[in-house]
């Protein structure tokens, strides 16, 4: 087969950053091509250049031997390229069907053909096995469901080249399987798929070939993925060996730190109770919509409680007030980075110091030196890839934004309970193991840690205990000694018939 998609010497710079430097590689027709690299390596930038959203400073893209010089997203679309971006690009006030048709509504003379609008979408969603009502407003969907809508975009348009930028970062295993099946189908139809991910499992499961980027440069190109090993890829990415990503370290568990009793709220109706001990890392696993994030927000007081109490070291925490929770020692890293995490328009330093600065600002007056010190310390410790601490946070790559949010809470003092919702969403392998190390260290100091994750290997790899949630209630509570993939998945699935079938699939795929 010929090289259908070719990148030739692509370079792209931003002020202070060379995001891509002289990147060349090519992909064959009917192939799924993986794209890997550390956070900030330039993967999304490459995808953006391909989508016509950004133009490269130098270099060109060839499709089917023809040089493309499109100027806009539309041109790229005409040329048969469709891109699913890393950040969700949906309009919350429009319905699912409208979002899928956006930019090319069906109809005559500007009047929308409503039967086609909904009908076609309904059919396509059914074909690919996504169970979402096309007439539902996107605002009413959970993040996972929104991600599925994004993915459906790729199928809606009859594209030749489809690029997916970390599509599974907010999907749980069940939805991921739907996506994988879809990708297999598209491959069989002879499309080219460019697939960005930090999950090695997926890369091996899906890809035929692979390119690794590092610091904006091409670090390695593997035309045949069966000829490489995991460890090889990891060292190409991060420049060193990582023997065991999880690196689990057992610890002493102390007295009960966090005690949650009969907690319920508007989006989590069944009351939930659990406790976490000093030094314990408790994992929450479940499918999308299981209600884990809702539980976390209730504990933190981000949403108002309808009943129940939360206490830290025996002292009750005031309901619905994040500042109160922080003062009582509970902090939360939210799952939705863009809407709940970063403060747009502010730089890294300000985003990190936003909460902890009160400890070193007498009478509310800032100490710029101390803030700078703090920022530099955590930029170094978390290896945030940035030209300076004054960089605006929106200009960071997704994974690096996540690290800054982590830095925000690591710099906070007197934290007793750390709740992290999807701690490593969009984070590269190297950074992942660093984050785990930090979690172990914090737990070792007596902190109680709650980790919410949709990645089963991660939950199993790093926690002392797992609580499995299903449809808004706790379905199982399993100690590390009893960890068993089938048992956990079975508990997470709403109906038993499906459960065994899917867990079989899971095991096969690994």
């Amino acid at each position: 087969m010929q090289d259908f998609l070719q990148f030739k010497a692509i370079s792209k710079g931003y002020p202070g950053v060379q995001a891509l430097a002289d990147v060349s590689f090519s992909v064959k027709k009917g192939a799924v091509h993986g794209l890997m690299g550390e956070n900030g390596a330039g993967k999304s930038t490459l995808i953006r250049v391909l989508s016509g959203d950004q133009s490269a400073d130098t270099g060109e893209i060839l499709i089917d031997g023809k040089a493309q010089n499109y100027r806009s997203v539309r041109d790229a679309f005409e040329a048969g390229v469709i891109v699913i971006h890393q950040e969700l690009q949906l309009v919350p006030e429009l319905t699912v069907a409208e979002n899928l048709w956006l930019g090319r509504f069906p109809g005559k003379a500007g009047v929308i053909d409503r039967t086609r609008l909904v009908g076609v979408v309904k059919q396509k969603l059914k074909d690919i096995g996504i169970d979402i009502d096309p007439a539902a407003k996107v605002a009413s969907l959970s993040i996972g469901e929104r991600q599925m809508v994004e993915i459906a975009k790729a199928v809606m348009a009859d594209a030749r080249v489809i690029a997916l930028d970390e599509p599974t970062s907010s999907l749980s295993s069940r939805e991921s399987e739907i996506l994988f099946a879809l990708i297999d189908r598209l491959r069989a139809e002879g499309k080219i798929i460019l697939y960005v991910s930090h999950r090695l499992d997926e890369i091996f499961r899906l890809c035929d070939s692979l390119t690794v980027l590092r610091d904006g440069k091409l670090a390695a190109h593997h035309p045949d993925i069966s000829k490489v090993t995991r460890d090889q890829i990891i060292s190409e990415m991060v420049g060193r060996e990582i023997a065991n990503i999880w690196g689990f370290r057992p610890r002493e568990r102390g007295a009960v730190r966090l005690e949650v009793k009969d907690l319920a709220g508007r989006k989590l109706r069944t009351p939930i109770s659990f406790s976490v001990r000093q030094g314990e890392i408790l994992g929450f696993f479940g499918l999308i919509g299981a209600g884990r994030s809702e539980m976390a927000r209730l504990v933190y007081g981000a949403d108002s409680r309808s009943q129940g109490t939360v206490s830290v070291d025996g002292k009750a925490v005031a309901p619905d007030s994040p500042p109160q929770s922080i003062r009582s020692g509970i902090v939360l890293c939210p799952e939705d980075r863009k809407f709940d995490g970063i403060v747009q328009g502010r730089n890294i330093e300000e985003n990190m110091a936003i909460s902890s600065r009160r400890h070193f600002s007498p009478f509310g007056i800032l100490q710029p030196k101390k803030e700078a010190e703090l920022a530099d310390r955590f930029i170094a410790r978390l290896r945030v890839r940035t030209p300076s601490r004054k960089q605006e946070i929106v200009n960071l790559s997704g994974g690096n934004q996540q690290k800054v949010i982590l830095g925000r809470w690591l710099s906070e003092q007197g934290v007793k309970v750390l709740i992290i919702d999807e701690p490593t969403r969009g984070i590269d392998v190297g950074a992942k193991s660093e984050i785990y190390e930090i979690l172990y260290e914090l737990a070792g100091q007596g902190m109680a840690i709650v980790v919410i994750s949709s990645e089963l290997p991660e939950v199993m790899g790093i926690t002392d205990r797992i609580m499995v949630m299903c449809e808004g209630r706790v379905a199982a509570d399993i100690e590390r000694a009893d960890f068993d993939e089938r048992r956990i998945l079975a508990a997470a699935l709403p109906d038993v018939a499906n459960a065994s079938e899917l867990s079989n699939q899971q095991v096969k795929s690994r």
Partner: protein
Amino acid sequence: MTSLKKLLLGEQGLVVIFAVAFAIVALTVPNFLTERNMLGLLQSVVTIGIVACTMMFCLASRDFDLSVGSTVAFSGMVAVMASNASGSILVGLVAALICGGAVGLVNGVVIARFRINALITTLATMQIVRGFALIASDGRAVGINDPGFYQLALSKFLGIPTPIWVMVVFFIVFGFVLNRTVFGKNTLAIGGNPEASRLAGVNVSNMRIWIFTLQGLVCAVAGVLLASRITSGQPNAATGLELSVISACVLGGVSLAGGRAAMTGVIVGVLIMGIAENVMNLLNIQAFYQYVVRGLILLLAVLLDNLRSAAAGRRT
């Protein structure tokens, strides 16, 4: 009980609340529910109502237009002066549409192409256009020579004055455009998430230019009708119109953050504004207290609407 609550707090809650308020007013305020008063009421909201149609689009796409009052005055002036000069009402009409459209086009181009904040741009054009209106007429009212021009406002069809029909037609047309056409959906998309719309291939800046141009054209229509009603072009007409129109839209549930709009809501908003004025005058409320009452009604209406959306659990 719960079904009542559902009704009040549902999608059509504002309409229901409005209907209830209307019934109460009709029963308690003497002379309110007479044919004459109803027609008077409707005529008094013609300018606001017509301009609100396109303001809805403007707000829904996350923009803002403060220049509507000036444009209404200016195009009314132009209509009168052009028809006086040429002796043809049609020429006056066309001239007004051209001028109104030009103002809108300039707004749109400056905002979309030069990426200048809409508030500031339209604040600037608001002053510039008002200046033009004053300069053109030397600050004086210009009388209409051809009595045929008055007929635009005085003529009736099925017993209802033409301006009201025009307003109704605008309501229907723009309601259709908003919900059933690519233009309407793209407007909402731009307001809901400009970045996503751009990435989906919607030509955001062209859309914005179109929306502002339409706004200018519609202001011209309102200006012509107003000139016909007051039988002259007045350079000081329609001051403060922008705030009334925006209030009406927001009352009707149009989100200033963009992405949310509905024609029924806007109609209700326009009517609430009109009824409030009408009832205050019917009840003979003193001028100074009218300020207070007007403010309180505005607050109350949005508060009710807010309770509704809070109950609907919408995330803002």
